[in-house]
């Protein structure tokens, strides 16, 4: 490893740049250092076809003169690169328009270290160990007569922040992810995924077996009609609902720009729906502070079906006249704050209970290529993928071809009639999530396809 991810030295680098920015005339300044050492082994057709590693470091400088704000980023951490960074930021900040409602950089607050966010095993994972895991997935597919596809990634990251208000924050974190699609003859496909801070907690053979067994069970799928169906969504599918709610609704900026469905206390789900953003959940991917150095708060997003709070960064908090909840992203950030550690509360049902409650419905493994059709109504379209089954009288009858849906995820929340006790830690597009499986009384399928 050539990139230094030592926390103290990364924080020292941030402080060095901060001092230079202040000497260059910044009235406020913030330096964010991100150092990353990551690798990914990718496999297809039951062989490794891509195997990559990356070491990188970036320095992000927010340079403020009065209310004039400039952000400059560099990947050059040598002295010349850092001098150029400060010069460029200073020159931009002197000529840009004032940000009228600039709320200032955040003030320091006590930060409690996030427990369980680092694993030496993950940080030191080798290409040989990832290849060994991939071979276990492939062996499971071979045994089931299917073909394995997927990726196995490991990474370590250090985040260091220093600002002119006195924030000095540094943390390091690791994550590992193994995902696989198994493909069997006659159209069978299955999916499985595991995510953890600690790569040693991932069992590649078990992940391989889960996907391969599902691929075997989905061979020769039959067509069913689109329309309104009761469904059971496995955890892999629930990730998308949680992600879209966080993306479209629970950001303070979305509310301030009147594009969110969010209203305090509004009922958007059944009593069974409770969701928080919890950076300290031991099942998730812990994080102590955000990319502005503000300690991350646990925020109640949905409480028994009722809208709770939204998340704030420093700028949206200033506009609202309150404190940041610690959900800022690296500057500049026109997209606003996001909940990056969403956790949905478990219920009491077993998988058998969920499926057993369907007289005639569909069991959905996961969704594919989802996209908002109407953001404010949270209407989403997407496809099912990698394992969709017809259920009759509480029993799985057999596999069905994939379907397109177009429906409001708020209606989906309102229709949740059962939640599993067991949950999975997975990765969504906003970060690590912890989700259960759910049964939903009505799901609007609007189209069919050929497989």
């Amino acid at each position: 490893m050539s990139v230094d991810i030592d926390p103290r030295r990364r924080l020292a680098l941030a402080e060095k740049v901060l001092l230079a920015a202040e000497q260059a005339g910044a009235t406020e300044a913030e330096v964010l250092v991100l150092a990353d050492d990551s690798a990914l082994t990718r496999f297809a057709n039951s062989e490794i076809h891509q195997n990559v590693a990356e070491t990188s470091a970036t320095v992000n400088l927010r340079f403020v003169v009065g209310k004039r704000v400039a952000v400059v980023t560099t990947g050059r951490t040598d002295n010349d690169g850092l001098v150029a960074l400060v010069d460029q930021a200073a020159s931009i900040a002197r000529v840009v328009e004032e940000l009228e409602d600039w709320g200032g950089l955040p003030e320091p607050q006590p930060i409690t270290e996030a427990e369980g966010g680092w694993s030496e095993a993950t940080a030191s994972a080798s290409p040989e160990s990832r290849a060994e895991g991939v071979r276990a997935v492939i062996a499971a597919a071979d045994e089931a007569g299917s073909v394995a596809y997927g990726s196995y990634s490991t990474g370590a990251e250090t985040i260091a922040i220093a600002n002119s208000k006195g924030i000095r924050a540094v943390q390091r974190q690791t994550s590992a992810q193994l995902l696989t699609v198994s493909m069997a003859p006659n159209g069978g496909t299955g999916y499985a995924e595991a995510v953890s801070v600690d790569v040693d907690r991932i069992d590649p053979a078990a992940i391989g077996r889960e996907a391969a067994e599902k691929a075997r069970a989905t061979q020769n799928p039959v067509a069913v009609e689109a329309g309104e169906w009761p469904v059971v969504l496995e955890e892999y599918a629930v990730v998308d609902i949680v992600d879209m709610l966080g993306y479209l609704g629970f950001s303070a900026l979305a509310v301030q720009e009147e594009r969110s469905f969010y209203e305090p206390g509004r009922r958007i789900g059944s009593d069974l729906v409770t969701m928080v953003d919890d950076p300290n959940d031991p099942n998730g991917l812990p994080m102590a502070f955000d990319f502005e150095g503000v300690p991350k708060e646990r925020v109640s997003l949905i409480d028994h079906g009722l809208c709770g709070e939204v998340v704030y960064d420093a700028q949206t908090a200033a506009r609202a006249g309150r404190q940041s909840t610690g959900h800022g992203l690296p500057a500049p950030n026109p997209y606003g704050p996001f909940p990056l550690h969403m956790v949905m509360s478990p219920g009491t049902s077993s998988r058998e209970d969920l499926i057993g409650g369907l007289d005639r419905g569909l069991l959905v493994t996961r969704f594919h290529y989802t996209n908002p059709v109407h953001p404010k109504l949270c209407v989403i379209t997407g496809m099912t993928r990698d394992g969709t089954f017809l259920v009759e009288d509480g029993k799985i009858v057999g596999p069905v071809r994939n379907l397109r849906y177009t429906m409001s995820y708020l209606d989906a929340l309102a229709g949740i009639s059962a939640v599993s006790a067991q949950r999975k830690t997975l990765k969504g597009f906003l970060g690590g999530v912890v989700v259960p499986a759910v049964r939903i009384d009505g799901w609007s399928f609007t189209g069919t396809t050929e497989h």
Partner: protein
Amino acid sequence: MRDITDRALDTAASQGASYADVRVVRRLEESIAVKSGRLEGVSSSESEGFGVRVLVDGAWGFSSSNWLTPAEADRVAAEATRIARASATALRNRVALDSRPPALGHYETPLDIDPFTVPFETKIAELLAADEEANRVKGIVYTETTYGAQREWKTFAASDGSFTEQVITHVGAGIESNAASGDEQQRRSYPDAGGGWQAAGYEYIRGLDLKGSAGVRAEEAVALLTAPLCQPGRRTIILDPSQLYLQVHESCGHPTELDRVFGTEASYAGTSFMTTDLLESGFRYGSDLITIVADATAPGGMGTFGWDDEGVAAQAVPLVQNGIFVGYLSSRETAPRIGRQSGGAMRADGWNRIPLIRMTNINLQPVPGMSLDEIVADTDDGLYLASNRSWSIDDRRLNFQFATEVAYEIKGGKKGQLLRNPTYTGITYEFWRSCDAVGDERSYVMLGTPNCGKGEPSQTGHVGHAVPGARFTNVQVGVGNG
């Protein structure tokens, strides 16, 4: 730069690599965002590093670093060969590359005004002026006016003696006006959702005339709040270039990526229905009017370059000819598997990513005869759909569904009533076979997207699409509006 590339190639060879290439990439980017009349963010970023790709025992390895020293070149090249050896422990078919002459030379995006020399204050003033026009419209709740530019200096060297240097510049800008009332929210963008982008200089930004177009689009956004819903049904539709390019992107560009066809994206974005047996059988992809070419030489396209990222010269590759499926986007590894030479479509997102088969400029060729306006005039009853709002397509690229920002009712050859929340859906080849009119050169424009996602770790690609408008019959519209 030679000291880095030579060192990496020498070390890879000494460690047992049968082939190696190295890319040294410096990327400069700047962006400006104005929201609702205020400057929201100004940023500039620089990234520099190198990536080494090697073949050892028929398996790939890749490593990268942003520390540009000869010693680091040694370390990274050695790590890449170690990774390749690990890959070889789970290998069933050795990689074989097609042959090509060593790539040598220099390429640079032609431009008139270097965007990085235009002062920030000038760019900001022009964005603020456009934003102000949109905000004059009553009912607009927020606007977003953006500008971006990217320049890459890219040096490629390979163990076969190739050595190329390229300087590629892309610029883009756009304005979005958003209106909201109760649960309804509507957006109109100009020139395109996400802005208009080209391989060009600042002259392209000036040519967009953001200020002159902002007000009209903002008024449409407000009008859409109370416009009738686009009702479900089967209709004749005309796609404006601002939507047609994304239809080409999703339903022809991605499914003709040969790595996807061979399964290497199966666990992420999926596979493709356009399998190699369909190429051999002359599969009818669309009507006779449909000819689609992957052209890495097209002026202004964000998929235009001198050589791809494994040293294959830019070229135009037919994908669909008069409706018949005839070719793929391909690489040196995949093309020989169908008995062809690489079409030069390997592109990487910076120094720290491995090249993948990516779109270049996937262009729907114009058809002499009617302009887009004349196609509208030729339509008795239909819908005219413009500016993408959302997109989705299944994992074999068959069932798609798009939403656009706006639909206009066409009656008697004239565009009239605005319709709210339009969507349309179909099966790819059925849809393209239903095309009964394609615009001519007069409506042929180069568009593109700077955010095409593919691969793990994720890569964002800049791709181009030159398209005219086109008409399709018997298309399901208004999904979810019943």
